[in-house]
């Protein structure tokens, strides 16, 4: 049986407790005194980091970064300059640390021509050491301490971790914009021999609430329906995707998927990245629109329970090789590593219009009083020769701010524009609305959203205004819904800004 409880207050308590624990455990902070080469100036403080080049210390004058070649270090916290090993302490979600991060580090080591060694200390406590392949000398050590996302945030908060592995976004801006390691999704799975392949969202809600106890209620045989896994704060409308990302669900997921795989009459909350032997069900909206947890739908955010996986980092300066690793995370090789690990990568692909037949058919089917044939024709005329990028901007529920993934997507898009991928092209920022309200008003709202994205992109980089890329905001209102508008949950999916790329008209080229 699935059970759910409100855990908002519990989370606060857990974070507070973890903070207390970590504060009491500050054992690695060390005092140092850095003296200038001529001996005239000494700064004392707590060593925050040493990256082989620079000392970063917390002193009476604030946090200072000092060039190691110009100072002499004294004190118990002084690192060995000659035998420097870059270290990064990673705390957080087991589901990310057990496979995805090691594979990324493996890929990085391979690219850099470094050897790799794993040192096991205890369950979920291990290190990956990068070694010079000629000398065997350890040059970097990634220390893992895995448990859950909240522990990662707590460790980052008190500077006991350099990185936090998070299966959901941090509510706040304290840790800055995280990197997206890959995309995952909450899925609802059955055993391979169970013939069910899709479930309506309203039925799913009933199952999660324990209101369906027999497969006969779903048109199946007279057998008990066993639901497994835990969910957090499920309400009538399945309002928030994060509701399904409760730590408990994630932790249990591996066990749940194993049990579901072996039990034909079970249905369970699982993760796309760990399918085990179970089959993920498609989801059906009230008006017949379906949601499938496909890689493409996760990238575009069109699957409602998509779940980006984050890497948050502390503010302290990272050693050079760790910074190189962070740059590696933005490469196509890292995207390959994420896919190899069972996650969906966030690299951009272009979806031609002809591959979007289902969406267009749905747009025609859903067209009614508010959206007429002319609206659809105008939209198709604009997008006919364009390709949709697998990158969508969505806004927080009831707010004008972008959600965390969309914020990260701004950086991704800026990176691709700056590096010339879209030179000579036009990027159409296609705003869409939900179906509430009148058609003209919705087109206006959609256009404003698209314009907001354009402004955010331009604010992100000085290079964009001078680049050879044209950013064109457009508002199509409710013309191409991704979901039914029968619930707030579905309306939120429809409110979005898509990015389409097309060649510039000849006259502008």
């Amino acid at each position, binding site marked *: 049986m699935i059970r759910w409880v409100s855990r908002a207050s519990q989370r606060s308590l857990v974070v507070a407790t973890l903070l207390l624990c970590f504060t009491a455990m500050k054992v690695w902070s060390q005092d140092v005194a850095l003296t200038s080469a001529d001996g005239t100036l000494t700064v004392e403080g707590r060593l925050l980091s040493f990256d082989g080049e620079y000392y970063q210390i917390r002193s009476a004058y604030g946090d200072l970064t000092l060039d190691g070649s110009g100072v002499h270090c004294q004190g118990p916290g002084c690192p060995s300059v000659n035998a420097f090993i870059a270290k990064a302490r990673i705390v957080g979600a087991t589901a990310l640390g057990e*496979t995805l991060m090691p594979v990324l580090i493996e890929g990085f080591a391979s690219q850099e021509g470094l050897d790799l060694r794993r040192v096991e200390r205890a369950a979920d406590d291990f290190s990956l050491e990068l070694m010079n392949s000629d000398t065997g000398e350890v040059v970097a050590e990634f220390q893992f301490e895995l448990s859950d996302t909240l522990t990662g945030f707590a460790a980052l908060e008190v500077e006991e971790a350099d990185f936090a592995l998070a299966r959901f976004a941090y509510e706040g801006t304290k840790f800055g914009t995280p990197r997206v390691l890959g995309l995952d999704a909450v899925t609802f799975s059955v055993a*391979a021999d169970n013939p069910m392949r899709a479930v309506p969202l309203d039925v799913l809600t009933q199952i999660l609430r324990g209101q369906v106890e027999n497969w006969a209620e779903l048109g199946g045989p007279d057998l008990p329906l066993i639901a497994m896994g835990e969910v957090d704060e499920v309400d009538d409308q399945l309002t928030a995707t994060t509701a399904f990302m409760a730590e408990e669900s994630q932790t249990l997921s591996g066990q749940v998927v194993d049990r579901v795989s072996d039990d034909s009459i079970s249905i369970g909350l699982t993760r796309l990245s760990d399918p*085990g032997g179970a089959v993920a069900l498609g989801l059906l909206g009230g008006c017949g629109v379906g949601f499938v947890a496909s890689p493409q739908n996760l990238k575009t955010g069109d699957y409602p329970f998509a779940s980006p996986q984050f890497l948050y980092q502390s503010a302290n300066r990272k050693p050079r090789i760790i910074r190189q690793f962070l740059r590696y995370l933005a490469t196509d090789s890292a995207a390959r590593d994420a896919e190899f690990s069972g996650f969906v990568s966030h690299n951009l692909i272009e979806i031609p219009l002809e591959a979007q037949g289902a969406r267009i058919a749905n747009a025609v089917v859903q067209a009614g009083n508010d959206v007429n044939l002319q609206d659809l024709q105008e939209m198709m005329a604009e997008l006919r020769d364009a390709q949709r990028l697998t990158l969508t901007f969505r806004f927080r529920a009831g707010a004008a701010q972008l959600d965390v993934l969309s914020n990260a997507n701004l950086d991704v898009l800026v990176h691709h524009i700056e590096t010339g991928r879209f030179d000579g092209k036009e990027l159409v920022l296609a705003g869409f609305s939900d179906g509430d309200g009148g058609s003209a008003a919705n087109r206006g709202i959609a256009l404003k959203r698209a314009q907001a994205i354009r402004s955010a992109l331009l604010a992100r980089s000085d290079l964009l205004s001078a680049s050879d890329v044209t950013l064109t905001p457009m508002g199509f209102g409710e013309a191409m819904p991704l979901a039914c508008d029968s619930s707030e949950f579905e309306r939120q999916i429809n409110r979005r800004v898509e990015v389409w790329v097309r060649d510039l008209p000849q006259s502008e080229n």
Partner: protein
Amino acid sequence: MMRTEWKTRLLLCLMYLSGQSIAFAGDADMSFPFPEFVPSDLQAPSAMAPMPDHADLDFVRRNYSAWGVSCEINAKVTPVADAMLRLEVSTPCQRGGRVDVVWSHVSASFLTSVTGVLDVTLPALEAQTTVRLRFENGTQIEKTGVHEDAEDFERVAITWRGNSHASLIALPLGRSGFRRDGQKLQLGDRRITDGTRSEIYSIRPTFDRTYGVRLHVEVSPNKDNCGTQQTFNAVQKAAQGGLVAIPVSFQLPDCGGGQSVLVMENVLRDLAFERN
């Protein structure tokens, strides 16, 4: 006359193999195939105690084994069913000798037979496999085997040295009726206490259903290894293609701390096969 000579040869062979000293009358014209008599070298070959048993036949400048066979080492790698490679080695002068075999980051030590023959089947982890052989006398040779079917199999391995009792555990997921349990192979001769041994899990995915295999490594502490630092190599597919071998080191519990098994759940990646 001829009949008598063969009887003599047969008798001498039996005496030789039973470890008895053999003495010949000094007949320079006798073209006898066995090596020249050296009493201290003549012992019966033992699988447990390899010995040098060759002798120079000066008149042909070649080495021959006690069986009268050339000491030349021959090795052959041929593809056989189920993406396996048959390794046949003949080293007549290293009877009962140790051979260290390394292929695709996997390693296993074997002993040759009393006739100096090794005949083993190795799972191919790659379409093209280079098999490296190292013999007790220091000789090293390489042979290459090609088996295109290797791509049809998912194979992971652990390799370790000594008597650590590491074990690769594979737990197939999915309804029992649809399980593909795969196969686990153990390679390496336990009698070579400092040799390398390997366990390889092999499964041929069919992609007609969704299923998976969880992989763990277990190590049983014993009186020889308790309290020690141990290392094994985990060999599996790499994201960037090919194979990756990562040394995994760990500390076994102190002696007297019970005989609980150490389980490492994440050193090998689970296998997942999605229905096409």
